[in-house]
């Protein structure tokens, strides 16, 4: 596996250990320990994935996440010590694609990183429509009429997954597997938060969604074209 990873963590032992594990997998690792230096390091190293600790000196992880998200759709995986709903949801809402809870197993982390890197490996000359949107899968763009909507790669994958099978209702578990690459049970809050974020970008009225429709008690499906 090839790719560049930016590790933002103030715990030097953990950062070094992360470096060892990631390099063993053939990844290129840059490390920064300070939140305030993170954005500059991000601009300089142009990583394919960012591993971001939530608790950081200087600027905290959530703020770093927001700043990186403001200028890039790069996949961000949060490293968090907290499992409380609020903490996780706040982390996801600040723009993270996924998260792993400390203490995590190396395989677990690698699965998350791999899932974020894997996307775009097999470009597909496909055109999809969902609601009044047209999706160019190969070109990674979503348009309403002539207006291009700016989605992060993860939001794009989520939309494509729904648009490819407009007749199917996706449970949160299925979406976790298809979009996030979880082979076993994952956290369905990931899906909820990202559906909200996606809706805020693609829906005309996010309060009354027409593109990504909730099927009560089951999950989500694409709105009628």
């Amino acid at each position, binding site marked *: 596996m090839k790719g560049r990873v930016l590790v933002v963590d103030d*715990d030097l*032992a*953990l950062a070094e*250990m*992360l470096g*060892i*594990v990631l390099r*063993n997998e053939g990844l290129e690792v840059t490390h920064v320990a300070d939140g305030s230096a993170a954005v500059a390091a991000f601009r300089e190293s142009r990583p394919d994935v960012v591993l971001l600790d939530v*608790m950081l000196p200087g600027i905290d992880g959530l703020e770093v996440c927001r700043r990186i998200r403001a200028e890039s759709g790069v996949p961000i995986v949060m*490293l968090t*010590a*907290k499992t*409380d*709903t*609020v903490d996780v949801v706040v982390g996801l809402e600040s723009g993270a694609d996924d998260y792993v*809870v*400390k*203490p*995590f*197993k*190396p*395989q677990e982390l690698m699965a998350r990183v791999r899932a974020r890197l894997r996307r775009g490996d097999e470009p597909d000359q496909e055109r999809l429509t969902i609601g009044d949107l047209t999706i160019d899968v190969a070109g990674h763009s979503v348009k309403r009429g002539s207006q291009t909507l700016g989605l992060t790669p993860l939001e794009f994958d989520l939309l494509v997954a729904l648009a490819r099978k407009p007749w199917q209702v996706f*449970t949160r*578990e299925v979406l976790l597997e298809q979009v996030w690459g979880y082979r*076993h*049970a994952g*956290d*369905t*809050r990931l899906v909820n938060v990202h559906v909200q974020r996606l809706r805020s970008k693609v829906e005309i009225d996010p309060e009354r969604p027409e593109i990504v429709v909730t099927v*009560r*008690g*089951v999950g989500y499906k694409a709105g009628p074209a």
Partner: protein
Amino acid sequence: MPEQAQAASTNGPAAVAMDLLRRARRTWRQSLQLRVVSTTVLLGVLTVGLLGAYLYDEISRGLTEQKVTTSTYDARALTRVAQARWESTTSRTVADLNIAAGDILAGLKPSDPDPTRYVIMARGIENTNATVLATVESGTLGLSSVRSELKEAVSAHPSTQQVQVSDVIIDSERVPAVMVGSQVQVPSAGAYDLYFIYPMNREQATMAFIQKAFLIAGLILSVLVGAVAWVVTRQVVTPVRRAAAVAERLSSGKLNERMASHGEDDLALLATSFNGMADSLQSQIRQLEGLSRVQQRFVSDVSHELRTPLTTIRMAVDLIHESREDFTPSVARSAELLQGELDRFESLLADLLEISRFDAGAAALDLEPVDLRSTVATVVEAARPLALRRGSEVVLDLPETSCEAEVDERRVERILRNLVVNAIEHGEGRPVEVSVRTDEGAVAVVVADHGVGLRPGEASLVFNRFWRADPARARTTGGTGLGLAIALEDARLHNGWLQAWGKPGAGSRFRLTLPRLAGAALEGSPLPLEVGAEVAVIADGVGA
């Protein structure tokens, strides 16, 4: 409910009356002031009434006695005058005698127009004289007003005065009157009765006036007593009511509420001690809140501080574990032990942190409608590898209909995972049955095994932290000893029940019952906890 509505519509007025009665009864029960005032007024009216009646009676008797006395004196004097005039008369013929009788009677008659006495002269009932004089009457009251008892008494004792008090009719009004009868001897006509009637209309007017005065006085007195009672109770009741209002605001969470306290009386004492109680409550609550915050902070800090180094250890151990083949056997075995124990340490830490979150009251529900059939299916699916290793078969019994409930799926999944894993681990290779049922208000999941079962009294102990069924074989089965304690807390967070039942040899059953609507109170469970007839049906259903 429909019957009640019908009853209300058919007997409308009766229902209204009943409603009023009920409302009055409630007011009576609720208002101390009303009770005190009405009891006082009632007692006051009773006392005034009794006293008034007694006084009235005394006055009335006194007046009558006095009237009788004056009447007899008056009548005696007048009778003497009449006798004297008869004795001095010279008339002998009937006509003359009749004229003389008229004259004499006119002399006895009072001069004023409103007569204070009436005079009647009539032939005595035992008079057999041949000469018969006409009955003479001075006014509107005639001989017919005189009772025959009096007439008989006069003839029986002609030498003495006879007195009787009885009612007469004057101007079609019934008036009590004193009647005095005595005899006079009329020359050549024998004994004649002379009756004096003294009507007591003046005394009656006086009594009517007194009665009116008494009534008015009684009324005023009663109102006064009521007002006094009202004022007095108000002085006591108002501060009590204020205290109640303040207490209510306090209990609704406004801890800064206090009672106004002035003076040094009992009520001021009440206010002061009330405020003291509120102060101490407030400070204790603040202290507890502070402790809870400290506790939550501590848990959060411990969580973060422990987890980061643990992550490094975890990764390092995994790296070492993976390359254990390069080491000597003892170091390789050590790496294996290290990894296994690290797993245990991690789950223990996770469970401990979860428990302290519950203890700190920091656990919150993330509710959404979930069909528990799919949750159960997911959990059972995930437990298959373990079941396979243990040789247990997990039998699912799901209904056709949806078992949707508003729950935090993550927590419910955790509860069920715990129950299923426990059942497999203690099931001794026998089948484990998982059933789901629903009714209007609740969804229930029963996880039953056919293992050693629980001894009497153990059903309540299983939820205790770090409790182990058999200390001797405790550590061979995994688990942190906190699983069921966490599951119980999770169930409680949902307002649900988590119950255990077991019999030695019959296995054990765990039942989770959750309300279908978040926060609703449970009234029952769709599945029985203890083994009974219904369980046989479930077993049949599984077999079919």
